[in-house]
Every structure is written in structure tokens, then in C-alpha cells.
């Protein structure tokens, strides 16, 4: 089986020539991607310092997390993509088992059950594992099949996709389930799902929106209502979004200056160092700052897609493309919700928002990208 797979991945016109290999690539890092990520992380820490009320302590904590996440990224980058491919089903099944565990014995707060805890040691969020396991699994499945995928393969992909998403949605964790679903869907889309089918699904999805209303929990409905009209409850549910829009709008083109944002520093802006951190940036550094960070994101996404394009194997292409596009979903959903374009969903601004788990997952994903990109040459040896 595996020799056949290997055969399938043979000669690729694009990569048929030998390239000079720099030392950076020898240690399996991608210069452009790493530069983009470090710039983003570094800039993010500056914004965090302001958002966390000039607390160097918070910045240090976040710095340590990033250091850890970067090490994880580095280690993953060393792994051979074929090995990742072989282990994909194991990740996926393991992740699914953990999700079942969360539903049975999970812990959490505010009515959501999202964590698995080993008492006294640590606790973690299995849904984070699924963010990577999902695209890997779908890509693993489709990489063997003729593309564009046929009906049967689509159906199997749909099953692979749906079960974990539903389990995460049930925790409930709308934001993560959305991101996991997106990761799986991107694989299918990149694998060449026909435009007709895409159009059909989109139409179906829009038609199903009202039905979604009945599945949603009360707090989720409230969020949608608030999104539609924040002024209906300015002191309650609408407070967050009104304050974040005020922060963004009052920043103007050049911003009020670093550490000078009144909305942020005077605590009018809620969740300012986590989900709403872009509002701090927009208030203090203005439109210029927002454009700068968006440009960085575009750079990272562009590099990610380039890596996907240059990947020698179908599996690598699909995984790299999906991880990159999912990363962009984070960006769009987060900024969209903070600026009032989308309802409030718990999605952090990737690599800027305060918080550990998502940074590790994200950088682990970029580790996979680097692994895919830097192991190409070995294929030709």
C-alpha cells in the first residue's frame, strides 16, 4: 500500500529540479513564514502589554507560551510529512475519543464543558487537537482517492467531518466547532469539489439558517439578536459590541497612541486582552495599525498557500492549504465580530489574543506547513 502511495507522489513537474538548500531549510524552518509569524507575535505582545493594563507579567506569561508553542512548531517541522500522513487516522481517532471523554467527564465553566482535566496536573481542550486532526484525516482519506472526489468519498468525508464537529458544538463551543468544520471543509474544497456542488451546499446552508435558530442555545440566540441590534440592550448584551465599535471608531486613522486608548485603558472595552484585542490595536494605532497587521496576516496566508502549491504530495497540498485557510478564518471571524460585521463568536485573534491553547495549535499547524515545505528535496534523493 505504502509503496503504491509513494509511487503516486512521484514525478512532479514543478519540483523536478534540484534546488540549493540553505541552512534554514536544513533545520526544516521556512524563513518567510517564520519571519511573518515572529513579526506578528512580537507586535502582538506590544498590543497585549497595553491591553493588559501595562502588565509586564501578562506579557511574560504570554511570551513563555509562545516560546513553548514555537518549540512545538520546531519539533513538528522536523517530522517527515509521510509520517504525519500515516499517523493521521490515529490522531483523529484519538482526538475523537478525547471528545467523547469531554462529553462524559469534562470540566468547564459558565455552562460549557470543554476541558479534560488530570487533577493536580493540567487540563486541556481536546477540541484543539481536532483543529489539526480534522484536516489531516480528511486529507489522508482523500489523498488515496481519485480527485475530484466522487459521491461515496464525499459522503465518507462528510461523516469524518460531522461527528467531531457535532460533539464540539454540543459542549457547547460554537467558535471551535466552526473552525474545525472549516478545516475539514477546506480540504474537500481544495480537493476539487465541483463548483456546482459548492453552489448547491451554500444554497442549502442559507436555507438551513432558520433551522439553526432552533438548535441554538439561549445565549447563542441572544448573541445573534445583539448582533442584529446592539442598541436594543446597550447596558447588557450590547455593551461589548458598542464599546468595541466605539474603541475602533474613535481610533481614527492614526490612533490615540500606544497606551493612550481611553476605551481600553479605562476598562470600557471588555475582553480587551483576549477576543477583543484588535479593538485595542485599532483604538491606539488607528487604521494604519489595523492595515499593518492585516498585511502581516496576508503575508502569512500568502506564504502558506505558496507552500501548499509547492507541496509534492496530494496529502501535503491539502493539509497545508486547509491549515492556511483556517488560519485566515480566525482572522476574519475575529475582526469581523469585534467590528460588528459578524455575531459574537468566541474566536481569538490568532497569535495576538492572550491565551495558550490556541497559540500552540496554530504554531503546531505552521510546524506541519514547514515540515511539508522543507522535506520536499528529500523526496528526490
Amino acid at each position, binding site marked *: 500500500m505504502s509503496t503504491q502511495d509513494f509511487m*503516486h507522489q512521484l514525478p*512532479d*513537474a*514543478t519540483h523536478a529540479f534540484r534546488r540549493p538548500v540553505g541552512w534554514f531549510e536544513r533545520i526544516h524552518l521556512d524563513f518567510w513564514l517564520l519571519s511573518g509569524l515572529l513579526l506578528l507575535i512580537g507586535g502582538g505582545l506590544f498590543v497585549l502589554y497595553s491591553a493588559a493594563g501595562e502588565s509586564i507579567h501578562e506579557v511574560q506569561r504570554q511570551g513563555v507560551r509562545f516560546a513553548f508553542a514555537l518549540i512545538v512548531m520546531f519539533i513538528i517541522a522536523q517530522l517527515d510529512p509521510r509520517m504525519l500522513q500515516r499517523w493521521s487516522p490515529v490522531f483523529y481517532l484519538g482526538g475523537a475519543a478525547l471528545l467523547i471523554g469531554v462529553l462524559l467527564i469534562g470540566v468547564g465553566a459558565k455552562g460549557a464543558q470543554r476541558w479534560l482535566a488530570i487533577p493536580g496536573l493540567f487540563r486541556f481542550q481536546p477540541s484543539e487537537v481536532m483543529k489539526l486532526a480534522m484536516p489531516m484525516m480528511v486529507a489522508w482519506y482523500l489523498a488515496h*482517492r*481519485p*480527485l*475530484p472526489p*466522487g*459521491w*461515496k468519498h464525499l459522503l465518507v468525508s462528510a461523516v469524518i467531518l460531522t461527528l467531531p464537529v457535532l460533539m464540539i458544538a454540543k459542549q457547547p463551543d460554537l467558535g471551535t466547532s466552526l473552525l474545525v468544520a472549516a478545516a475539514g471543509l*477546506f480540504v474537500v*474544497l*481544495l*480537493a*476539487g469539489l465541483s463548483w456546482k456542488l459548492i453552489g448547491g451546499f451554500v444554497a442549502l446552508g442559507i436555507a438551513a439558517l432558520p433551522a439553526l435558530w432552533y438548535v441554538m442555545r439561549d445565549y447563542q440566540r441572544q448573541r445573534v439578536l445583539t448582533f442584529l441590534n446592539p442598541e436594543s440592550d446597550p*447596558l447588557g448584551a450590547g*455593551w461589548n459590541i458598542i*464599546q468595541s*465599535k*466605539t*474603541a*475602533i*471608531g*474613535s*481610533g*481614527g*486613522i492614526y490612533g490615540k497612541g500606544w497606551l493612550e486608548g*481611553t*476605551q481600553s485603558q*479605562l*476598562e*470600557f472595552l471588555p475582553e480587551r486582552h483576549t477576543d477583543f484585542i484588535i479593538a485595542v490595536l*485599532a483604538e491606539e494605532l*488607528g*487604521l494604519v495599525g*489595523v*492595515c499593518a497587521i*492585516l498585511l502581516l*496576516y*496576508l503575508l502569512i*496566508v*500568502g506564504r502558506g*498557500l505558496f507552500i*501548499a*502549491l509547492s507541496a509534492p504530495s*496530494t496529502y501535503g*497540498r*491539502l493539509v497545508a*492549504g486547509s491549515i492556511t*485557510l483556517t488560519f*485566515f478564518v480566525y482572522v*476574519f471571524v475575529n*475582526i*469581523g465580530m469585534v*467590528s*460588528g*460585521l459578524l455575531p459574537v463568536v468566541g474566536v481569538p485573534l490568532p497569535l495576538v489574543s492572550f491565551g495558550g491553547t490556541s497559540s500552540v495549535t496554530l504554531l503546531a499547524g505552521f510546524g506541519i506547513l514547514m515540515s511539508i515545505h522543507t522535506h520536499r528535496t528529500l523526496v528526490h534523493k
Partner: protein
Amino acid sequence: MSEKRTFKNLELEYRLFRERVFVAFAFVVLLMLVLIGRMLYLQVYQYDIYTTRSDKNRMHVRAMPPTRGLIFDREGRILAENLPSYNLTFVREQAKDIPAVIDTLASVLELDEERTEEIRKQAYSRRRPFQAALLLSQLDEKQIASISVNRYRLPGVSIEAQLIRHYPYGPLTAHVLGYASRISEKDLEKVDRSQYSGTHYIGKSGIERQYEKELHGEVGVQTVETNARGRVLSILSEELPKQGQSLKLHLDAELQKVATQALGGFRGALVAIDPKTGGILAMVSTPSFDPNLFVSGIDTDTYRYLITSDDLPMFNRTIRGKYPPASTIKAFMGLAGLEHGVVNPTSSIYDPGWYQLPNDDRLYRNWKRVGHGRVNLKKAIVVSNDTYFYDLAYNLGIDRIHPFMSQFGFGSNTALDIPQASSGLMPSRDWKKVHRKLPWFPGETLSVGIGQGYWLSTPLQMATSMVLLANRGKWVQPRIVESVDNTPIYKTSDSLPKDIKVSDDSYWDQVINAMVAVVHSKEGTARKISNGIRYTMAGKTGTAQVKGIKQNEKYDASKLAERHRDHALFVGFAPLENPQIALAVVVENAGSGSGVAAPIARMILDAYLTPERLAQGKEQQETTP
């Protein structure tokens, strides 16, 4: 689709993938542009809206209410001050379990169901986050202590201080000072609203109302920066309030106390004035009330008692009580007689105990039924003979009495800073035509001649008339306030009446000497009060009929209902040589002026005319001839 094992077409798959990536990238760029567009919209197009909103969030304009001015008496004793009062406030966001906090509060303060419900409502009232709600005001010391001890169980609950008005002398000064209490919507219509933002109290009556503008001061404005919790972080700009000005009164709080004690349980009024300045030294109306009750919100039972009691504790008798001046005006009638040549020092009449008008068989009786025999002006005043003044009044006629008496302030309010004082009533032919639609009858002139009939005057007017007598016609207007923030207030005003001139200055001496004899001679009606007196005083008793006595009927106090008994009056001034105090006493339904009112007057004079004051007065008299 064919499910036969087909080899993958790698070339095709790669092209397909590349196409998808390009489409995806195009989407990414498009969505990036959407985000930038959104930011442009918020940060450029709607910049002004959100800047305003952001400023409104953080900047708050706070009124800085001025501190109400203090009120002092002539000796610098404090009559009205501002004391801290404590309110209970609650910030919902600081409490994790709101119902538990309210329950704890209810048990700590031992509140009943009703109060607890009120507090609950307040606690849940809609506010911006971190804004404090007022749960209770005016906590007493016990409540403050209970809350302080249980503070750890009451997250979000705090005690805030505020100044409220307090009157240390309570009922003693209630009628003069009036009181300040919670400002109402109606009060706000009468004042500049902006001046009262942040102020909780306004003068409702008395001096507190009359000098509201001075006492209140001017509001200050502070622009502060607050955080979302409402905590003030910095002051952006401020204009300090102009504190209320302090008032110094002519009033003597100790004299006020003596006068209240002297009036005892009677309903009555006393006004004492310094004849040199017109400054009111004492102004007592009994019974009185505790003005502090009104400041802190009076309970309904007490309030109902105060407004429905027959004793009218809320009624300021000194300026609103209208009494027949009775015999207290006899000196002025005598003066009028001398001025108009109707009588002279040597002329006399024979008093058989009654007087009769020509062509009228009605008998106008002297208070002493058997008469005083031959009576001249001096004796008429000393023994308070009625018959002499019937004759004098008849000969003068109402048309000469009215203008003469009006000069002394009868029938008008001459006070400088007491606009709510009554004018009383100095009857005239015109007045009767307008108000009673009847002609003037000669018999009515006789009643006016002894200060009865239509003639009504307030204790303040009676005291003022004594000031004029002491000053021999020189006017000073009665006034309560001496200075505002140490600046003496205007000595005169446009309303200052013209000084009273008589054709011969000896006329003054004649009537004043007669009044001295009222006290200091063996015949005088007030001779009993001259016992052991340290100074020479002029005085006149009066006994005002409340109920008309029929012809041939004899007045018998014991037979009359208490409310129908005569009012006792006394007016006078002292010392004779250098008058320092003029006063009027009215005691309702107390009997005779000589028996009740005169001794009260003596007590006040004794209290005020200390040996030091007498010595000082003498010194002044010698230096200013």
C-alpha cells in the same frame, strides 16, 4: 462514478488544486478588503460619532455644590450649620450574589418587609455598569456601626457622606430662621436650575428663604475622567464653587432662650429690637417646632400634629399674628392729641367711668367701672384711662388718627428683610368704604382710640412703634440680618419711611415721661415690675378684648372659655436715657397686660441690660451729647 480502481491523474489533480488555491487566495484578498472597508467606515467615516461616544464614556461633568452658608447670632453663636449625614449606596457589579447581599443588609439593619422591598427595587434599578444606587439615606450611628462591622459580608455596599442642615437651637430659633429642606420640583421652578444641580436643600421659610441667594452660593463645575467602574481617575478641568455666604444676625440666642422660657407654656409672641440699628434682638413665637424635623423629612404623624394643632406651632405670631394693640398705643394717641392741639398738658376731663357720644345713649366704659375722676394726659396714660382717650379720639376724628398712626408703621410692613410679615390693619374711612361697604361710624373712632375695634397690629409692629418712640420719631427699619460675610448690609432702603416730626419736641418727653410713670410711679399699671429694677424704663400695658362684652356686662375671666379670655400685652423700652432695647409682648388669652405681659417684659430687659451693657450705654451717651 466508476468505483473501479483507477490510477490518479496527478497532472489534472494538481491543476485542479492550483485553481482552487487561486480562487481561495482571491477570496482571502476580497475578505481582507471587506475588513479594511469596515475599518475605514468605522475609523474614518464614523470617526466623529465614535470620538464623541468615547469622550462621553470617559468624561463626566460633575456639579460641585457649594456649601450652604452658616448663620450666627450677634455673639457669634452658631444658629444654622451643616452636619455630615450618611447614605447607603450599592454597586451591583461588585457583588457576586445580589439577593444574598440584600438579605444580609435587611437582617443587619433589621428592616421590615416593606423597606427591604424598596431596597431591592433600588438595587436592581437600571443603571450603567458600576454606577452606585442609593439604598438608604440618613443612616444613624447604630446603622453605620452595624454596616461597618458586617462590611465583609456586604460586597458592593458603601457608606457615603453628605452635608445636611442642622439647627443647634432647634425650636428656639425656628420661626426666625425658618428651615431648609429637600428641594422640590416646584422650588426649582423659582430658581436657576443649573445653580442647584448637586444641591439637595433649599431655604423654605424665614431667613433661610429670604437670604437663599446669599446662603446658597454658586455651583462649581468639574470635568472628570472616570473608568468603566465609575471611579474618578483624574480631574480634567474644574471651576470651584463659590461657597454660600455666612449671615450674622442681630438676634441674641440667649435672649431668645430667656424669652421662650418667660413665655412659658403660653401661646404668645415677643419681639425685641435695638432702637439704634433696628436689629431684632429676640423674636419668639410660642409654641414652636423643631426645624430639624423638616430637614430630614418629617414623619406624617408629627406633621399632621404641627399643622392641625389648635396652638398653631407653625404659625409665626411675631410677624403674622394680628392683635388689637389695645392700650399700648395710648402714648401715640396722646402724641397725636398734642400735635393736633386737641389736648394740652394742662387740659383734663372728668371721668365718671364711662363716655357717651352726643345723641347716643350707648355707654363707652372705662376699664375701671367707677372711673378715675379728674384725668389729664399724663394720668390717662399712667392709669390707662379709657374715657380720656374716647374723648381725645372723638375730637381728633379717624381722618386725623389714621395718617398720624400710619407714620409709626401701623398698617404696613416696614421691616427690611421680612417680606412675609403682615401689614396688620390701621382702619380709615376709605378702608371701611372699600372693604366693608359701609360708612364710618363715630363710635368706631372711640374703639380705635383705645387700640381696639378694627385696629390690628403684629407684635413686630408694636415693637417697631416703641423703637420710634425711643428714637423720638427717627426711623430705623427692623431687620434680622446684620451682615453677610462680615459686610454689613445696607443700613437703609427705598422703603425707609420719613422720620416723624412733631411741632414741639417736648411732646415726646410728655408721653415718654408718662410711660416711665406707668412703671415707676405708685399709680402706674405696671408698677409691680419696678421692684429692684436697675434702670429706668418706659412701658405701657394693654389688655385686648377677644370677645365683645355686652353693655352692663362685667368681664369675668373665670367664666369665659380659655380661648375667649383677654390677650395680655406690654410694650416698652429701656433705659430711658439711652434706649438699648425696645420690645413688645403679646400673651394670648392670658388676662391682663399688667399681670402677665409686663413681668415677661421685665425678664427680657433684665437679661439684656446687663450691668456691662448699661455702663457701656452710659459711656456712649456721655461721649455723644
